[in-house]
Structure formats: structure tokens, C-alpha cells
């Protein structure tokens, strides 16, 4: 069965969308970065994060705006992130594709393949 995926997001875009959704109101640059680093166990560069956020915003998958300056950030503002309905749909589509495409492979079923 063919599922119509309008625009397939990339894996890093999926990670950003998932982290931002999980963080909810507290989703902004540094917190998303921390969340990804914790989940993936690998450093997430600020360059990759901010360019991905721009790309997701231009596709209409997230909305970003500047928050109030806080003292813990040296009086600097946060770039707050909110995932849109289209963004959630795109992440869900990506997840479904990964689940479908992984059906029957060893690492998905947690069983060794017969050689």
C-alpha cells in the first residue's frame, strides 16, 4: 500500500520537531539542543540546529519568535519554537515511514537474521 507523504522531512528535522514537541512551551535553541544531545548521546551543533529551524519555519512546520531577555542568559532573549499542526503531521509521517520500512528487519524485531 502506498502512503502519500507530501514532503518527507530529514532525520535531523525529525529530531528537532520531536524535541520541540516534547519541550512544549519551553522549546527554544538551548533547550532543544540539550534534549537532542540527551536523546541521541551526541553533540548537536548550534549551526545545524539554527539552519534546520530556519528550514522548518520556511516549510511551515514550526513557528519561532523572540522571547523576553533573562538574566541566566546574560540578558539575552530566547528564540522560542512552537511546532505547527503541519509540523506534527510531517513528523508523524516520517515516523510511520520508518516503522513501515523497518518491518521485518533484525534491529526492528530484535531478532538475529538467519544466515
Amino acid at each position, binding site marked *: 500500500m502506498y502512503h502519500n507523504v507530501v514532503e518527507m522531512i530529514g532525520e535531523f528535522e525529525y529530531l528537532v520537531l520531536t524535541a520541540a514537541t516534547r519541550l512544549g512551551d519551553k522549546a527554544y535553541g538551548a533547550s532543544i539542543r540539550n534534549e537532542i544531545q540527551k536523546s541521541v548521546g551526541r553533540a548537536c*551543533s*548550534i*549551526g545545524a540546529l*539554527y539552519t534546520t529551524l530556519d528550514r522548518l519555519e520556511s516549510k511551515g512546520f514550526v513557528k519561532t519568535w*523572540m522571547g523576553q531577555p533573562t538574566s541566566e542568559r*546574560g540578558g*539575552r532573549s530566547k*528564540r522560542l519554537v512552537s511546532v505547527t499542526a503541519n509540523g506534527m503531521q510531517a513528523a508523524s509521517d516520517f515516523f510511520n515511514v520508518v516503522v513501515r520500512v523497518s518491518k521485518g528487519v533484525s534491529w526492528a524485531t530484535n531478532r538475529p537474521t538467519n544466515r
Partner: protein
Amino acid sequence: MGNEQTNKSITAICWRFVHYLSAALQQEEREAVLGDFAESGQNGSEALRDLLGLLARRQVTVWKDGRLWLTLASVVLPLGLLLSVISQTMVGEARVYTWMYANNWDWALTKSAGFWYVLGEVATQVAINSLMLACWSWSTGFLLGCLSTRLLPTTRVTFLLLIGIFQIANAPQRVIHLWMYLYGLPGLTSSIDTNAPVTGIAFYRVIFPYIVLCTLVALPAVWGARQGKVGSKVSPKLRPVLIIAATITILTMLPQIPGFGLLLGSSGRQWLWDNRHAMRMLLFLTCWPMLYLVATGFRRYRQNAASG
């Protein structure tokens, strides 16, 4: 103890670079990125590496943008070359006078009334030419600032690099020679350097052109770009007017190019000659940057007075 001190110094230098380089980002992004660095407690070298990564990615995006190439081809390259040509023409004149007075000074001359008369005329001419060149450069920068706010860091650096390269490659001289050759004046391409005593001195041949280029082209252009960026944001309705004003100012540069008359043909040259007084008045348009600066300064003063 020594190592700790060294690490602290390196971190401080890295943070200084971070603050300096982050100016290349858009204001809001800069705010968010520096805030993220502060919150995550990164050290200077990590922050610098991250910032360089972000800037590199941003540059890749910018250079993929067709508008950048359009701006480079339509504004940066032709106007950079034009300003280099005019700057070099001015250098040729100014360095002869500078050499004449600075290297051949004689106190006895100061007793002659004719000396002061000529000095006054020369100083006025050089000052007017310098002011005009600075105004044209400022207007070019202003136009860049108005046209490409997002691309400005890249277009500004490219403009500065280009005028430097033009100077190193002696591009203005080559363009003038090519121009003359195309219009059938091959004799001029192999003319003898009549200012050899001046150009024989390394300062006048090498350093003087760069001083003129930096003070009368690069600095006013950078200042104009900053003003253009601010000006286009303050009043979007006024933006087209500002762009037209800067463009007209830039167009007044054209008759200053050596051999410009050749391009017009004989009827065009005749028309220019017949309207030479009106054309001279056109040069007053070059003063537009000064009017703009006075107007914005006055406006700021009034705003400050009203708020304070």
C-alpha cells in the same frame, strides 16, 4: 598555574572573537545564539567553533541565493570598478600636488602671493574631488544597505575585497587602456609616465593609492551601508525615494570616468558641451549624502529632545 592562566587568556580571546564575529549574524539570531552560549555554559573555544559552523552554513545559504549574484553583478562589481577608476584618477592628480608641496617645500615660497593663490586653488580642487569621491562611495554603500539588508555582511565584504583586488591588479588602469584601445586611441596605451619623479617614490606609487582607497572609498562605503540598512528599516515608504536618490548620485559619477565622452559619440559630446553649465549643477546632487546625514541627525536630535 601557568597553564591555567594561558587557558584563561585563550578563552577570553575566543569570547572576544565570538562577540566580534557574531556581528555577521542578523540581530535577533545573534541575540539568541549568544544567549544560548551563556545559558549552556560553553567555554570560549567551543562557542567559537559552534559560531564558525553556523556562519559557514549561513554563508553557504547566502551564496546559493540568486539575489546575491544579481547584487554582485549589478551593483558591487560595476560600482566597485567605477569607484576604483575614479579613485585612481584622483590619486594621480592628488599625489603630484602632494609631492610638489611636501617633497619640494621651500619657506621662501611662502613670501610669494602667487604661491598662496595656487595653493588655495589646488587645495580647494583636491578637497572637492575628495568630498565627491567620499559621497559617491557613501551612496554606493547606502544603495547596498537598502537593497540587501540580509545579504549585506556578504556584499559589504565582497565589495571591500573587490576594490582591494582591483587596486592590486591595477584594474582601473587596464580598464582605461582597454577603453581607449576600443575607441581607436592606441597611442594612449603606451604613453610615457610624465609623473615619473612622483611615481618613482614608493610611498606615492604604493601606499598613497591605498590611503585614498581606504579613507575615501572603503570607509565611506561601510558607513553608507550601515546608514542604508537603518534607513530602509525606519521608513519602508521612503525606501524607493532613498534608492532613487542614491542611484542618481551614483550616476553623476559616469562623466568623471576618463573617456566617457567617447561612449556618447559626437552628438552626445556636443549635447554635453551645450549643456555644460546644467551638467555642472548636476554635480550638486553628489552632496545628497550630506543632506541625508544632516536631516537624519536633526530628526534624531528632535526625537531625543522630545523624549528627554
